């Protein structure tokens, strides 16, 4: 008997040991009795794309950024005809979301507004995008310049002789607010271009499907992708460093297995080695400011960047070096990809009626313009901005710990952002007065309890969705970004896995067999062996180096536009994305067949 709905959010029990979890999140982010009637009638799905794990209270900032900004730009600014925003709730520490549709009666009027408003952007896309890069880079410079040091016993003389007129304590209060608000502001820019960009991209998709019902998603993507986008720059820098190592005759010295710190120390002992390490260090800022979260880069404060953990990029450099030594080419075949893009575009175009060709040309042109942004914004915001935001947050947490406001830096992340502001005030006031903060004594039991709750919540397996599913899932962004479709939802309802297959979205074509390698944290990446089938919640561009080693990728979340799908197409290896539960149902070592044409993973060796 297949259920026709998922459990009500109001019937989900609190996991044992997690009692009181609600205090970890803002009240407006929770299911509550006042909205019960509304919320029980809605279909919520677990947003494992952006937040595959339990949220720390502090990291709720991440959710709030896009909750508000996406909504405002869809609903209020561009009047996206069919779609309002995406509503959010936190349940047992997990983020659930539901897209809000525009009232059908409003769609026509909204379309007229959208035409004028988005049309303005489409006509000037490249110029607006150039301005956009300046705006975002300015925000990046702004938060990079912020400093969160323990407050000094005595203010520096410059406070006096430069007539600064305010105290370090005030500046700590102010700068924390600025830090958070700068992230909020950046998210306005994130959605200034993103969803109208997706709308144009989706249109090209719809147009191709209309004319060529049998065309594969991959063919459509290939007409648009393959651009020389900056997103590939970090990986290209790794390749360049591998070539440099070869040129400097360092191949043998890099072929060992010692960690980055030991290796760099020994390299610095001679001129050639020192030159290479200096090159590495110059390259690291900004190109190794790459978050390593599985899924949405920068989604959590807990994942390191390449710069934080040079062992991750070093493993890739070593792999590239090995391939260079074997005489392989490691360059991305950009020219071939572009030539292939133009060939297939011309091929499909030729099959259209004369009347359609002008629209096709205009739309593929726009789709390519927006696609560069769709790929590149990830580098600017998900990587650079978030990496810097989290680095500054860690800096603040160390300052607060040093001043005794919390016992250890990580404690701060068990406080909500408003609680952090309170703690800063408590700390600053005591510092100012020369008194003692209530701080750690007050916060200690609260944080200790939240650590217990956090552990209990992590052991809980969240249902993939809540509430009644719609008969048809046709909200275009849900389908494209989250990979959630009518059939994947009915698959979830069926409690699948009985027949030894997992179904997802065909992200990249090809069929291969290989042993499973489950990876849920980037620290496990070095374990990946050549020929493995990578099974993960999702990948991020930070994982790119591993793609040189694996045979296929299977992800829990993501649609055809997810990084996993894009990168696998780029590397020409099969991918099945959005399977929902590959990580929890497959074991490392098990042999599977990955069919990237059909979107099916078959277990060849029972668990």
């Amino acid at each position, binding site marked *: 008997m297949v259920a026709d709905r998922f459990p009500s959010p109001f019937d989900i029990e609190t996991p044992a040991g997690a009692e009181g979890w609600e205090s970890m999140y803002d009240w407006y982010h929770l299911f509550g009795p006042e909205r019960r009637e509304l919320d029980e009638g809605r279909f919520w799905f677990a947003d494992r794309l952006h937040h595959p794990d339990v949220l720390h209270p502090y990291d709720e900032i991440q959710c709030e950024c896009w909750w508000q900004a996406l909504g405002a730009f869809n609903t209020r600014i561009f009047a*996206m*005809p*069919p779609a309002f925003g995406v509503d959010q709730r936190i349940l047992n520490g997990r983020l659930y979301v539901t897209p809000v549709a525009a009232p059908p009666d409003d*769609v026509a009027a909204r*379309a007229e507004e*959208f*035409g004028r408003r*988005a049309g303005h952007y*489409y006509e000037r896309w490249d110029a607006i995008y150039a301005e956009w890069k300046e705006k975002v880079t300015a925000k990046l410079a702004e938060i990079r310049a912020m400093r969160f040091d323990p407050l000094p016993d005595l203010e520096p003389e410059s406070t006096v002789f430069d007539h600064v007129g305010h105290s370090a304590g005030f500046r700590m209060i102010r700068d924390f607010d600025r830090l958070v608000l700068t992230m909020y502001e950046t998210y306005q820019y994130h959605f200034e271009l993103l969803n109208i960009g997706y*709308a*144009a991209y*989706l*249109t090209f*998709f*719809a*147009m*191709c*499907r*209309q*004319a*060529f*019902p*049998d*065309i*594969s*998603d*991959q*063919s*459509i993507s*290939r007409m648009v992708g393959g651009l020389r986008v900056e997103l590939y720059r970090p990986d290209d820098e790794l390749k360049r460093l591998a070539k440099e190592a070869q040129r400097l005759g360092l191949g043998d010295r890099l072929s060992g297995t010692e960690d980055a710190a030991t290796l760099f120390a020994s390299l610095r002992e001679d001129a050639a080695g020192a030159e290479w390490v200096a090159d590495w260090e110059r390259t690291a800022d900004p190109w190794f400011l790459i978050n390593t979260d599985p899924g949405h880069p920068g989604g959590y404060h807990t994942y390191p960047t390449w710069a934080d953990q040079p062992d991750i990029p070093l493993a890739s450099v070593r792999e590239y070096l090995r391939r260079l030594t074997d005489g392989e080419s490691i360059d991305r075949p950009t020219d071939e990809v572009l030539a292939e893009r133009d*060939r*297939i575009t011309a*091929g*499909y175009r030729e*099959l*259209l*009626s004369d*009347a*359609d060709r*002008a*629209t*096709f040309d*205009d*739309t593929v042109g*726009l*789709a390519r313009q927006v696609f560069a942004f769709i790929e590149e914004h990830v580098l600017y915001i998900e990587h650079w901005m978030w990496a810097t935001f989290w680095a500054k947050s860690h800096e603040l947490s160390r300052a607060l710990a040093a001043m005794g406001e919390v016992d250890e830096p990580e404690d701060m992340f068990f406080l909500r952002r408003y609680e952090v502001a309170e703690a800063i005030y408590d700390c600053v006031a005591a510092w100012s007065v020369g008194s003692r903060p209530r701080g750690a004594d007050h916060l200690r039991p609260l944080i200790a309890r939240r650590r217990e709750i956090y552990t209990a919540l992590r052991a809980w397996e969240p249902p993939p969705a809540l509430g009644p599913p719609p008969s*048809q899932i*046709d*909200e*275009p962004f849900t*389908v*494209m970004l989250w990979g959630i*479709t*009518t*059939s*994947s939802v009915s698959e979830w309802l069926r409690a699948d896995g009985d027949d030894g297959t997992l179904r997802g*979205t065909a992200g990249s*074509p090809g069929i291969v067999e290989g042993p499973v390698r489950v990876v849920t944290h980037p620290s496990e990446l070095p374990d990946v062996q050549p020929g493995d089938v990578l099974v993960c919640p999702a990948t991020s561009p930070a994982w790119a180096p591993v793609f040189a080693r694996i045979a296929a990728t299977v992800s829990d979340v993501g649609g055809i536009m997810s990084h996993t799908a894009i990168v696998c197409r780029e590397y020409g290896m099969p991918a099945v994305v959005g399977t929902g539960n590959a990580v929890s149902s497959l074991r490392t070592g098990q042999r599977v067949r990955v069919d990237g*044409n059909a*979107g099916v993973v078959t277990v060849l060796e029972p668990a």
Partner: protein
Amino acid sequence: MSGDWVVPLGDAAAGDPDTVGGKGAGLHRLVDLGVRVPCGFVVTTDAFRAALTDAAGTVDTVEAPLRDLPPDAPIDVVERAASTTRARLLRAVAAGPVLDAVRTAYDELAGGICRVAVRSSAVGEDAAGASYAGEHDTYLELRGRDAVADAVCRCWASLYTARAVSYRAHAGLGAAGAMAVVVQEMVPARAAGVFMTLNPANGDRSTVVCEAVWGLGEPLVSGAVTPDRFVIDKISGEVVRREIATKERSLVRSAEHPGTVEVDVPADRRDEPCLDDAELAELLELARRVERSAGVPQDGEFAVAEPGGPARVQLLQTRPETVWSARAPRAAAPSGSGSALSAVLATLTRGASAAPPHEGTPDHGG
């Protein structure tokens, strides 16, 4: 009226459909394109007329029973008249220099020992607008000069089967005209089938749809077996869909005697795809060349010669596709839009269809 009675497929004279019929002219085009087709020759319409004239005086004498039929004659009356006509024809052509020319041509084809297919090639068939699909006779796996001459006569006679007569009447094509006959070396087929350079289920012109079975293709054409079905993207070359049927029986060359025999497919091959990716890629390449050269969507038949492998796909015939070709290509955008913005608006207000479907839509065609 003194043209050649027999012309090789590659001969310039084999390009004239009035002389070699629709199928013959189509095969000649393929040879001209450099596409692999089995070697062979055409017994021309001049040969047909000469055979009848020699023996019976005129074609009119043979066709007389049909000529007197009223337009709305009941089927059994048509059947009787057609049968009389065929008998007259077979009697009339049984001897004479024309069939000797056919025998000589067979002898010259691979030393007169090879197995051949003998196929009707009526004038007017296989043209855009009328397919004549399966209206005339075909004989497979024949060996020996007399067997071939006999089959040629039967093909001539099949111009006057009741169904062919009815088809012509239905299609408004009038009198029988003349019949050419194609004689080709038989491909020892590991697998065979049909293809179309569009998807007949939805008119998608970016695909080549192919159906195939183990062995010879005839059971597929006649609808006796369920074939494997492949949808190949013309531009990217991807096989976007595969529907593999359980293929229990196949028609193959008889080992002992000329002719064909129906056999069980070995158990381990029944559920296997009968074409591999390399063969599909070859077929795609051939189909695209043919379509480009013809300028309109095509359908056709092919065979993969034993034992499979590279350069084994041969085309047995092609002709213009007659249903979708008559229409404009599928529209990509609402008419009169022209700009990307109007396309975006159309997509966003259309709702459901905006999202890329998760799965291929099932279709049934071919």
